[in-house]
């Protein structure tokens, strides 16, 4: 036994199938790596496209023009996005303010209150809510919600309508993700607190929820991200006037709605300006993702 035949300690690379490589094996590896690269490329592609589309407007008007508190008259060269950004944030934050707590309550219900059958049935309800297309929500909002609000305070198409519709749409996301987070907790946490004499509600409020803080926060962040991106339902009920959201009954326009409404007939700089607003929207979503990654911990890569 010579020195050559002794293997120096070295980390084993993951090639657990080493052997004579048939051409079929090579093709397989190439296809696999191509798929992985494509997934990365898809995301890169979206961002690159936004950047390319936005470049003309940015070079011509400069970023400051978009961030200034001006009006949005793109054909006249005015590109103030602030009102729409504010509206987008207002609608989304409002929706989360409603859907967040409600979603958590629903998750708590499924996990700790409902029996097997009731829990499964309610999950079906949530999945159905999630499956309803946004245009249908918009249609319902237009024909039921808006007239009701109009009866209270005209014109009806308002920030409030947007918040209500959006919160219904975001609720299933928050509820399902929060429930998944609660399920990750060790059973002994809840059962142990009950065994110590805590009432159910106290155990949940004081022990379970604080322990699941990370997952619940992540659920809310993802709900908020969805709210930010929602276009159609909001478009149909908020009135679409470009104005700062100064009252819940004000008519506003969100960034996604703006793109949807104007893209069809926008040309040149106007079209490019819409791409800029797309970039701003992505920046908001990106910010949320970063926050979620920071606080969410291990689950952050899942969605």
């Amino acid at each position, binding site marked *: 036994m010579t020195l050559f035949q002794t293997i120096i300690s070295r980390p084993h690379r993951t090639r*657990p*199938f080493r*052997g004579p490589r048939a051409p079929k*094996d090579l093709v*397989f590896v190439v*296809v*696999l*790596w*191509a*798929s*992985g690269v*494509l*997934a990365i490329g898809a995301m*890169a592609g*979206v961002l690159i*496209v*936004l950047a390319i589309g936005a470049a003309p407007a940015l070079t011509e008007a400069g970023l400051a023009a978009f961030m200034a508190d001006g009006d949005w008259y793109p054909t006249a060269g005015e590109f103030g996005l602030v009102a729409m950004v504010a509206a987008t944030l207002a609608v989304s934050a409002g929706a989360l303010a409603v859907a967040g707590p409600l979603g958590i*309550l*629903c998750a*708590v*219900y499924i996990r700790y*209150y409902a029996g097997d059958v009731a829990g499964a049935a309610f999950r079906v*309800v949530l*999945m159905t809510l999630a*499956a*309803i*297309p*946004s*245009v*249908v929500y918009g*249609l*319902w909002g237009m*024909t*039921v919600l808006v007239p009701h609000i109009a009866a209270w305070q005209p014109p009806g198409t308002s920030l409030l309508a947007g918040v209500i519709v959006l919160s*219904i749409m975001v609720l*299933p996301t928050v509820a*399902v*993700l929060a429930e*998944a987070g609660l399920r990750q907790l060790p059973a002994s946490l809840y059962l142990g607190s009950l065994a110590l004499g805590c009432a*159910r*509600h106290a155990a949940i*409020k004081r022990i379970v929820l604080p322990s699941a803080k990370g997952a619940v926060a992540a659920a809310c962040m993802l709900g908020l991200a969805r709210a*930010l*991106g*929602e*276009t*159609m339902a909001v478009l149909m009920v908020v009135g679409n006037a470009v104005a700062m959201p100064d009252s819940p009954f004000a008519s506003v326009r969100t960034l*996604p709605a703006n*793109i*949807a409404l104007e*893209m069809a007939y926008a040309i040149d700089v106007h079209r490019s300006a*819409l791409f800029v607003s*797309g970039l701003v*929207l*992505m920046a908001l*979503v990106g910010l949320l*993702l970063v926050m979620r990654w920071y606080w969410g911990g291990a689950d*952050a*890569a899942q*969605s």
Partner: protein
Amino acid sequence: MRRSLRPFVNDLVVRAAVAAVVFVLAAIVVHVVTRGAALVSWDFLTTAPRAAGRAGGIAPVLVSTAAVTAVALAAALPLAVGAAVFLVEAVRPHTVAARLTRGCLGVLAAVPSIVFGLAGNMIFCDWLGFGFSILAGGLTLALMILPIAACVAETTLRMHGEDRRAGYALGLPQRRIVWSIMLPAAAPGIFAGLGLGFGRAVAESAALIFTSGYVVRMPDSVFDSGRTMAVHILDLAMNVPGGDGNAFATATVLLVSVAAVVALFTALDGKQGREFV
């Protein structure tokens, strides 16, 4: 609040929340279906729209919807499975490549649909020259379905770790293990993921108005433009005065199709229930 009342009130709050959610769902579905079902008939499903959609049926819309969805699912399946197998077999969990891929899929999942519309418009309609077409719309939707389908596929594949080990122990090469063992074993779960993707695809409108087009006409090929059900509802509700009736009818048809397909996929998936919203 008195101590003995507290548990009662807390429980009440939870149950009230749940009841509210169920009530809202019921209210929406009932409202849409009652206003729309009356107008749905065989005629409605098989004739073309007249008078900008106020009258007539939705036949070309149904065909376009089916075509766009078919293109989307056909494109998304290999991409999602490929990405999932890549994550399970080609890279170890914590390497740069794995984290980058998972990260990109995660970001893709959060991208707003309107942004997909913009990107799809530029990539498929402009650069690749498809113009407003079912193909462009379908491929854009495939990108939207990709993250969730890949996530479900990856989770399902990882559940078959035992089979993978058995395959390696028998001296099978990796390609054989993936193709003959893991993919067939994971197939039900993968199709469930596609079912979810279908639900999302058919509900989409924002990504399609600039990619598959707005025109109502019976498409002759995937290179023609076409209008899907969701876009049709949008148009009738927003731009066509008096279009409400048919909008509800179309919405009813849409809800029924989504319910049918999701139920079908769930049944195929068997006992492995998964919640992905």
